[in-house]
């Protein structure tokens, strides 16, 4: 069974060497949760239960979960419009996530934010963001707070390859480096900013090369390899925690689904999608845990079954939850006077 010292050698993946079997099984469970959550969301959308749009991260689960392994609830993340995975990885409750999707009062944002604005402040998730690059300076601000207030928190800032051409990216990385702040920039390079490939949009081959311009370490990793992601981000988190400043990690991955619900997939081929589906991060993670004796083939269906149950319960909770009151449409624009003592 798991963590058997005799099985550990130089060829043992970092994650297996560094984390307990329980932690690794939990990580795999979270990856399944993300996928089933998003499949459930997609299905609910098709049935007309969810309006608006959504940006699915199916295929990118190793990046979300692997990047949060070294974080506690005290640590912060900022997320993106493709943020469900980050949210689950940081420990969110699926019922409240689905409720938000369904626009319900019981959702994380009481139905005011929807898919693109889910946050879970208690778990350190400062929120998804509808603006490409919007979370980057905010993450640097959170790292500034941690340094000034001595909280010991590290901020992991998720963003996509599209954001690396926003001015906010460059301003944020520069300031984080100048002030040596405890932040890890995690670029999830899924090859396309909506329809425009990184080859057509980005002057450097790898986003991580841009770290050199801000005098910080930069590393490109296989973002579908849970252990590789964990190894790179853990080192960056440790560096941040030690007061040595920011790092840029680029997780190269792929979104199986379109950019959003309006995507007709005209900018890529079926073959390309199939090729990446063959690199399924969840299957690879399952295989790694089986190969190292942490799980057996028969354990996987059990985990899947349990996850499916959790997702079904979460959807049921969301469906049964009440809608927000129309009379409260303008609530929370400002902080009420009665809450000010707490806010101050």
């Amino acid at each position, binding site marked *: 069974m798991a963590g058997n010292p005799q099985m550990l050698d130089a060829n043992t993946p970092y994650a297996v060497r560094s984390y307990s079997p329980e932690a690794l099984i939990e990580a795999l469970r979270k990856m399944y949760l993300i996928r089933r959550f998003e499949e459930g969301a997609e299905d609910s959308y098709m049935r007309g239960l969810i309006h608006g749009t959504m940006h699915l991260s199916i295929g990118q689960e190793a990046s979300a979960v692997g990047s949060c392994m070294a974080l506690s609830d005290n640590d912060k993340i900022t997320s993106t419009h493709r943020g469900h995975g980050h949210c689950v990885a940081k420990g969110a409750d699926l019922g409240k996530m689905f409720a938000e999707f369904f626009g319900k009062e019981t959702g994380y944002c*009481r*139905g005011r934010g929807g898919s693109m604005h889910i946050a879970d402040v208690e778990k350190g998730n400062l929120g998804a963001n*509808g*603006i490409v690059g919007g979370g980057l*300076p*905010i993450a640097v601000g*959170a790292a500034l707070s941690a340094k000034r207030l001595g909280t010991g928190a590290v901020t992991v800032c998720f963003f996509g390859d599209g954001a690396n051409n926003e001015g906010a990216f460059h301003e944020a990385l520069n300031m984080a480096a100048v002030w040596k702040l405890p932040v890890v920039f995690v670029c999830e390079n899924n090859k396309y900013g909506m329809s425009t490939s990184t080859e057509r949009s980005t002057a450097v081959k790898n986003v991580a090369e841009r770290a050199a311009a801000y005098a910080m370490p930069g590393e490109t990793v296989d973002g579908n390899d849970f252990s590789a992601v964990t190894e790179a981000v853990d080192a960056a988190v440790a560096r941040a925690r030690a007061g040595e400043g920011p790092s840029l990690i680029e997780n190269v991955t792929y979104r199986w689904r379109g950019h959003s619900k309006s995507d007709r997939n005209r900018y890529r081929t079926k073959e390309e999608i199939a090729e990446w589906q063959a690199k399924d991060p969840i299957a690879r993670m399952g295989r790694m845990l089986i190969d190292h004796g942490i799980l057996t083939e028969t354990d996987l269906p059990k985990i899947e079954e349990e996850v499916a149950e959790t997702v079904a319960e979460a959807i049921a909770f969301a469906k049964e939850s009440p809608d927000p009151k129309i009379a409260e449409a303008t609530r929370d624009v400002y902080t009420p006077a009665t809450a000010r003592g707490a806010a101050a």
Partner: protein
Amino acid sequence: MNAENTPEVRTLSYAEAIREAMDIALAEDERVVLMGEDIGVYGGAFQVTGDLVEKYGETRVMDTPISELGGAGVAVGAALTGLRPIFEFQFSDFATLAMEQIVNQAAKLRYMLGGAVSVPVVMRFPAGSGTGAAAQHSQSLEAWLGHVPGLKVVQPSTPEDAKGLLLAALDDPDPVMIFEHKLLYKMQGPVPEGRYHTPIGKAAIRRVGSDLSIVATSIMAQKAIAAADELGKSGVEAEVIDLRTVRPMDRETVLASVRKTGRLLCVYEGVKTLGVGAEVSAMVAESDAFDFLDAPIVRLGGADAPIPYNPELEKAVVPQVPDIVEAAAALAQGRT
């Protein structure tokens, strides 16, 4: 405040009053940090932060790179996670570079997250024309930000209010945008010692009058007072209301004055079209005070043009004291 609850009042400049407010805040609250371009050893482009960096060091008085978008966003993120940043834009015009963080993030985060957070950030904007800095360093953009739910927008016109509104902004849990007129920085006036608040959302009646109401913002409140004194010599008694806060607007004070005088003149430096005076006018027109109007509402505002360089042209595109006197006298004609 001293034992008798009557703080000593000194004469300070508007800039000194702001600096005193920041000094008090920095001394009292470890969470307060100042951020901005050249606010450290340089003392700020208008010498508002002055020598504060010597007293509090570079970790509390932080020079930022020339990165308005990033800098404003860092302030928002810091406010979200426990600090109380005061972010200085070197010129209010540079808000254009940071609108994403101000409008999409600072203003909306609380609402988007269903009330789970507050964003207690203060941003300071040296604004307005009259310094010969031309079109990209002279604008009055308060109406832009006043249009955004989630923000509070104030425009102090005296040293006392400059200090009191900044201290009130710091104690406010929501983002407060302070537009400071650059020509007021050297204005001298009485300023109480110690900590006090000028309430956000409350206008000030600067001069009591019965013939017309002049509702003005920022430096225009001072010009309106000068115009009202001039008008007084010819027997026209103007009531001057200094709006002080653009959002949320002090509806009651404005409406009460209009009900009393029956005449309304709005004076503001921002572009007249779709500006603060348009909102004041509409507020009156939509209210019961409309029935008290004896004449059409008059607005004086900035011309529909960028601020020009030539000093005479520069003066010509924003209301001056003689313009206010003339407009007020014409409006007051025919009063009963």
